[in-house]
């Protein structure tokens, strides 16, 4: 066990963790941030997606020790003073979930995508999202939510976006 200092959702967080312990376990089990999900632990499903300095990252494959210098954003860090981001809002408006277990990872991956490409092409959406699995099969609505967040009437400026 070693001391670990992480920068998560705009706050410094202190904990202890084993060497090589995945960021996913540290977030979920040591920092109480259970919004980030385990789906496979093998980089195959995207349920564990978080942002490291704004980039979508599989927290199950990232040792927490490798994230000490990064600004980490989890699903819990998107909402600001009760305001949802455009992506979160769009997921709600499109009803883009069934069991919702993939939703955290989907929202994080979509958030990273729209930061990089404010108006992504269909191919860019596929490229960014294909690694995120929804076993309930909600893909068409998730894709629609991403389009809505990018082009829709939803407000998507300023503080409503996650900070890196």
């Amino acid at each position, binding site marked *: 066990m070693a001391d670990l200092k992480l920068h998560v959702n705009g706050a410094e967080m202190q904990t202890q963790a084993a060497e090589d312990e995945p960021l996913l376990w540290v977030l*979920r089990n040591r920092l109480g941030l259970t919004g980030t999900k385990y789906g496979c632990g*093998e980089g195959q499903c995207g349920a564990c997606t978080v942002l490291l300095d704004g980039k979508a990252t599989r927290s199950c494959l990232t040792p927490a020790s490798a994230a000490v210098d990064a600004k980490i954003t989890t*699903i819990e860090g998107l909402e600001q003073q009760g305001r949802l981001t455009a992506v979160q809002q769009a997921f709600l408006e499109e009803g883009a979930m*069934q069991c919702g277990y993939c939703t955290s990872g989907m929202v994080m991956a979509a958030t990273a995508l729209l930061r990089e490409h404010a108006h992504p092409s269909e191919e860019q959406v596929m490229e960014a999202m294909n690694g995120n699995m929804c076993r309930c*099969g909600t893909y068409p609505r998730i894709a629609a939510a991403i389009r809505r967040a990018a082009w829709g009437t939803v407000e998507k400026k300023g503080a409503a976006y996650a900070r890196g």
Partner: protein
Amino acid sequence: MPVDELMKEAELHEVRDRIRLFELDRREFLRLCGGGLLVCMSAVAGAQESGRNFGGHALPQEVSAWIHIDADGKVTVFTGKVEIGQNIRTSLAQSVAEELRAPFASIAMTMGDTDLVPWDMGTFGSRTTPTMGPQLRTMAMTARQMLVEAAAQRWKADPASLIAEDGRVTNPATSESLGYGEITRGEKLVAKVSGDPTLTPATEWKIAGTAMPKVNGREFVTGKHTYPSDVVRPGMVFGKVLRAAGYNATLISVDTSGAEKMPGVQVVRDGDFVGVVADDVWTAEQALGKIDAKWNVPAQISNAELFAALKKGAGDDGQTEIGAALASAEVKLEKTYTVAYIAHAPLEPRAAVAEWTDGKLTVWTGTQRPFGVKDELARAFRLGAGQVRVMMPDMGSGYGGKHTGECAVEAARLAKAAGKPVKLVWTREEEFTWAYFRPAGVMEIRSGVQRDGTLVAWEHHNYNSGPSAIGTPYKVATKVERYHEWREAPLAQGSYRGLAATANHFARETHMDELAHELGMDPLEFRLKNLDDARLRAVFEAAAERFGWGKEKSTAQRGFGVAGGTEKGGYTAACAEVEIDAGKKVRIRRVVQAWESGAVVNPDGLRNQIMGAMVQAIGGALFEQVQFAHGKVTNPHFAEYRVPRFRDTPEIEVVLIDRTDLPSAGAGETGIVALAPAVGNAIFAATGVRLRDMPMAVGAGNREQAVAGSE
């Protein structure tokens, strides 16, 4: 679905013993409900199976067991059905709000908590909407009548002159008005109601029948919803369980000393059950890795030998039972179809948190059968029904895959040894290996048809995959339809979304397509010629119309296919367009699916379910397949067991037919049955290659692209 068929499906879940009698403890119930008043009365019987003595469980007939209205007018509804993504937390609340004439926002659903809700067999078989819906509506309607009568007494008014609306009873003559909470306060209402319930007809629905958004949607987009695997208890530690080297293995020897030396690690041993407990899951994983076990794994068949063993084991002798009828037919066809074992692979694997307090066991776990798991726990630890409580937070789905309580039992065993609450979450590999599977199956169909397209003889045998939807909806003078069990199946078999209906529809609707091509008839026209069922005709026609069926001819690059059927009160038909590239890769371009299941309770939720079922169906149709050898699954990872992803998803259109004149049926399952045969038929239309085995793509089970193989 008749009760005995339901029980049959319940048996399929590897539940070995009969369910024990559970009696709701009234005092405990009242205490847990807290303040506020109960509306207590008898209610009419027979709105669902509950009226009968079901497996020893006579369900409570008092409204108070189902609905509680507190002094603020907040309504709590109790049901043993559970929310797993099918949206019943929302749709059931809509039904209650409708009959109670209460605001939708005032309704909260308590689901799947065995201490609080009436006994329930489980959430499967598409039974929630057709049975729990009317049950709760009856209770809500009865409660509303009581509220009106109580207000009438208070005002000395004629109940018939009062209006119940929006959570209030109002007297239009005097403008007096009372909220439901104000009426129940300080009084206990007991009454008997007799006669048939007169529920609000769907044509007059104001809250039910609308596209109400998911009640707690915001919890999901903010990561706040607590899934079973997210539950945290004070002092909780983490567990891991040692898995056998193969199915049916026995433990020869185990050396746990390496794990025991690790600080903070406790090893738990109880016969062949070996587990570890540690303060964090990472340490528990490392400790498990240090355990050295030797297993004896008996010889077992592999998936390469599966279908030969299955046919033999299930008694397929290749003999026809309709020889005479076949002999009289102008065109005869005999074909064999297969479906592979597939996994549910819910994104949230099995998870449980178990806690022992003063001899009482509480388990939070993801399951479709909280009461079934409760019974398993009671049996496993020799506890009385009152000593076990199972709670089921809305989970990361199941698709029929989470009926059993093995993870809950394991967590409870570890927690008992640790003296602390234990969380156990199965890994993806454990989920792929130690869960149960949708049974593989062989379907033999023999048929006879006249040159004019009249079906005259039909024989459909299903070996091992199951009897659901084995009955053809088409008119045919002579038919035999039979399911044959296989008792020595190599993998644990259980329930699945659509279960055997997928296999039987794949076989039947592919065979119908083959017959149409033999006759040179349009596949849709051939079906309609042999179909009287107006509801099924309507979905075929609706799908065909929206799709533009027949407007374009199939080419070598683009094929069109159609398929449909009915099961569990749902009627569906799909038209599919596939694209075949130069390398024979198949891509599903577009699918239009029509759906009808009576009156629609929530069109938005229903569309979501049907679309989801169609997407999930792509996996079983094209590439999902559990591969196994020597008692082990050999592709227990998403890297090797391919499930549908964004890129696999075609343009999807769902056409809903809302039959407000018919009772609502469930829609969680049957939406899955039409896609595979429609796609297979479209592939044939383009390539002339007939695919009779699901999954249909070469390279199935790995990450290869779907490729239409040759016969």
